[in-house]
């Protein structure tokens, strides 16, 4: 089981966390984007092989939503940090 460093609590078993998916910021004015672009935003993910920015929630801990950079090919977490304006 992976150890994930919560920016508040330090390294904890990944089972304490909820995965929140890859970071894909919401368009700031949804009405300004086309139907296709909106559909992409809702349903499409990059599913990157490599370093991915993603959300984690320290559910059984401090309740923090934070960001992690994780290499999806090796499952190594490079760093975790607090979000700034959703990214």
């Amino acid at each position: 089981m992976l150890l994930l460093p919560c920016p508040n609590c330090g390294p904890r078993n990944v089972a304490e966390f909820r995965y929140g998916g890859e970071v894909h910021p919401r368009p700031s004015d949804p009405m300004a984007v086309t139907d296709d672009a909106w559909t992409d935003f809702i349903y499409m993910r990059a599913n990157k092989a490599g370093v991915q920015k993603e959300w984690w929630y320290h559910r059984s801990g401090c309740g923090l939503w934070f960001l992690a950079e994780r290499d999806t090919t090796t499952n190594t977490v490079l760093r975790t940090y607090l979000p700034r304006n959703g990214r």
Partner: protein
Amino acid sequence: MTPDTPFDFAFAGRVYRAQPGDTIASALARNGVRVLSRSFKYHRPRGLLCAAGHCPNCLVQVGDEPNVRACMRLVEPEMVVEPQNAWPSLGFDLMAVVGWLDRFLPVGFYYKAFIRPRALWPWFERFLRRAAGLGRVRSTTPPGHTLKKYLHADVVVIGGGRSGLQAAIAAARAGADVALFDEHPTLGGRLNITGEETAAAERAALLAQAAVQPNLRAYTQATVLGWFEDHWLPVMQGNCLLKVRAKAVVVATGAYEQPLLFPNNDLPGIMLAGAVRRLLHGHGVKPGKRAVVVTNNDEGWAVAAELLAAGVTVAALADTRLPDGGSARALPGVTVFWGHTVARGEGRGTLRRVWLAPLTEGGESARPTQAIPCDLLVVAAGSTPANGLLYQAGARIAYDEGIGQFVVQELPPGVFAAGRVTGRMGGDAAAIGRQAAAFALGETPNPAPIADDAPALPAPCYRPTPGKAFVCFCEDVTAKDIATAVAEGFDSLELVKRYATVTMGPCQGKMCAAASIHLTAAATGRAIAATGVTTARPPMTPVPLGVLAGPHLEPLRRTPLDEWHRRHGARMLVAGLWHRPEHYGDPTAEVLAVRQAVGLIDVSTLGKLRLTGPGVPAFLDRLYTTRMGDLPVGRVRYGLMANDEGVILDDGVTARLGEQEWYTTTTTGNAEAIYEWLQWWAQAGWGQGVHITDVTEDFAAFNLAGPQARAVLQALTTADLSNEAFPYLHVRQFDIAGVPCRVLRIGFTGELSYEIHCPAGFGLHVWEALLEAGAAFGIRPFGVEAQRVLRLEKAHIIIGQDTDAMSDPLSAGMAWAVKFDKADFLGRRSLVRVNSLGLRQRLVGFEVLTPGVTPEEGLQIVAPNGDGRPAIIGWVTSSRYSPTLGRAIGLCWLPADLAARPGAVFTIHRDAGPVQARVHHGPFYDPTGARLRG
């Protein structure tokens, strides 16, 4: 626990005598029992082979527990041991005819035999089920008691042999907190069995050194099942699964002795040198009367000398080397055959004699020349490193021409290897232990590997002698089967593995992985290095599912009134982790009480959130499809939440308690998810000036509902409850029965009702006071079932029952709850599109026309399609008999055009016959809502 005098146990229906310290296998060997099991496919007799837990031969059933390795389990008084896979008995196994039929069970028979004729398959299946499989799971066995424990260590050492002990002691001396795991009942590994005089002394010294280290914990009969990220190790110890987190891991798992490949190499009486030495020196048991030793290294000579010393006749020693290849010792009375190997074994049931053959210059065995009667053949023909855990940990493992084996080349951070697992005979394990401690304590990177000039492990010989030579004892795969698989086109190692099932049995490749590489290489004509290795995966040894599952524990949430409910005959219902009253005996009476007098329900399970701060109005307006930001102080409003797909997430009410304080409820089931959802949006950027606190467990909550609700409540408070002072959809805070409460005038049930939230600790007091005050008005507590009927009479939806992951508010008939004139909110963009495309399905009410029938929830709604056959056009999500209305009503999804026509009749498909129903719009009961506003 362990007895210190001899005792009795049973095997295959007979009683035998065991000595203290015996394993099941050593006790049976002591009593001359040689056949322990029957093989998986051909039902050939099998006996003790490795005595080290590495092969499938000694799997037995102990009481209700199948697949116990007899050589690893200490025998206990009165233990009842049964052989497996033998029918009707071990000595006379009818299934052994399969052995003569082997040409009908070719390699890959799983995929090609028994397929035709199809009609015979059920017969084949019954036969195969009896023939295959290991052990019996008795369905009558009570569920076992299993445990789960967590353990942390700076350094974990896997393997308690000489190297493991040395590494563990050194790491502990360096100040690390060390945990040592060994799968055998006793520590010491090969020191227990070599019989060398110095070994016992060395073992005692190491154990003494370990014992004085308070920071060294040793676990025996503890099997490390695998390696997972960040040094997370599942360890099975009896019925307990230890979950171990280490900072550094030293793998000192040693090596697996390998069998030789010659016809009948599986006859009971053929044992690996380690098994012979364990019986001799570990248990004082003579493994046979007349032995032949075959070897390709010096160990065979040592074992021969030990057998002689124990009084066993050694008839011959065959050494595959030439006379100058090894250090010959004097073995009085033993005929030595240099440059010879065993060409075949013979015997019915057990070994009677072996044929020796000289080796040709190319290393093939020539025609057998000598037949030597014996009941024991000792195979001392090399070992292969037990590096599966290193492989799992990400070590680079490659073929080393010099050593003649696949050995570890490079280790990942925090992983160390000590002893024979490296492919060499020993090395400085203490230095490795110190390195591991330094890594764990200082997080220093792995140092350069210590130059190791220890001699290489003797490499096994994998050249098969033609005939039925078993490579894989688990699955009865022969050397010829592997050649056949390659000839049939399965020409890579991974394909051979899957087709022939070699390495896929209970031994997990310990006895056969290396051999299958060599045989595949030979058959494909590729180099060993290019043939590669198969992926090592957890678990390293078979593990009972119960051990993985652990104890069956589930958190349970009880409301503050739980005990009261149970005392008053409530039938409890599981709702997520909560237990809630379904009813108190008569749900119909409960419904009628609410409609005609007054009722009280415990709704403490609702999610409850406190929001504070100046940013809350804007935040709520973005999260709800309804308008929330302009909610005045003292008011309550229904709220509906959707996600950006436009799918309904949850609903509840929000009360504004003060200028900067809001109180929001969520549905019971979604409480946690909605809290996380709100937190996400708040923390991800929309939360300036917003504070969210989950206060679900701080408050007890009840709904007092019915025409008499005001009168009951008034008896317990001085607050003005008149409709003018406290109207519908308002919130007030006042004392009830002396307890400060927040009271919300809302009406899920359709009657005048007060939702009372009070500090959880006073819940029982307020609840009982309300029931007492209500007695004169005919009050009844009611449960979830009555509430479902009451809300259905009002056609209120339940999120998750009437809606699913595809339901949007417009289709669910809640367009009134979507405020398109608000600025951006979650779901708006998608709902604009839904609106412009028009609805396909709609959630709508129905009344049942067929008398006497209440259709079950989940039934399908059908209509004839073009060719006159019924097609599914919708489904029922809620359905109840309404005692108030005297007929069955419900909610269902229908095509939008049909749903739009009140009174339109449709058909619900039901096994007992079709049910007619008609579309109904709006609440079934009190459509104007006069009662709840009154």
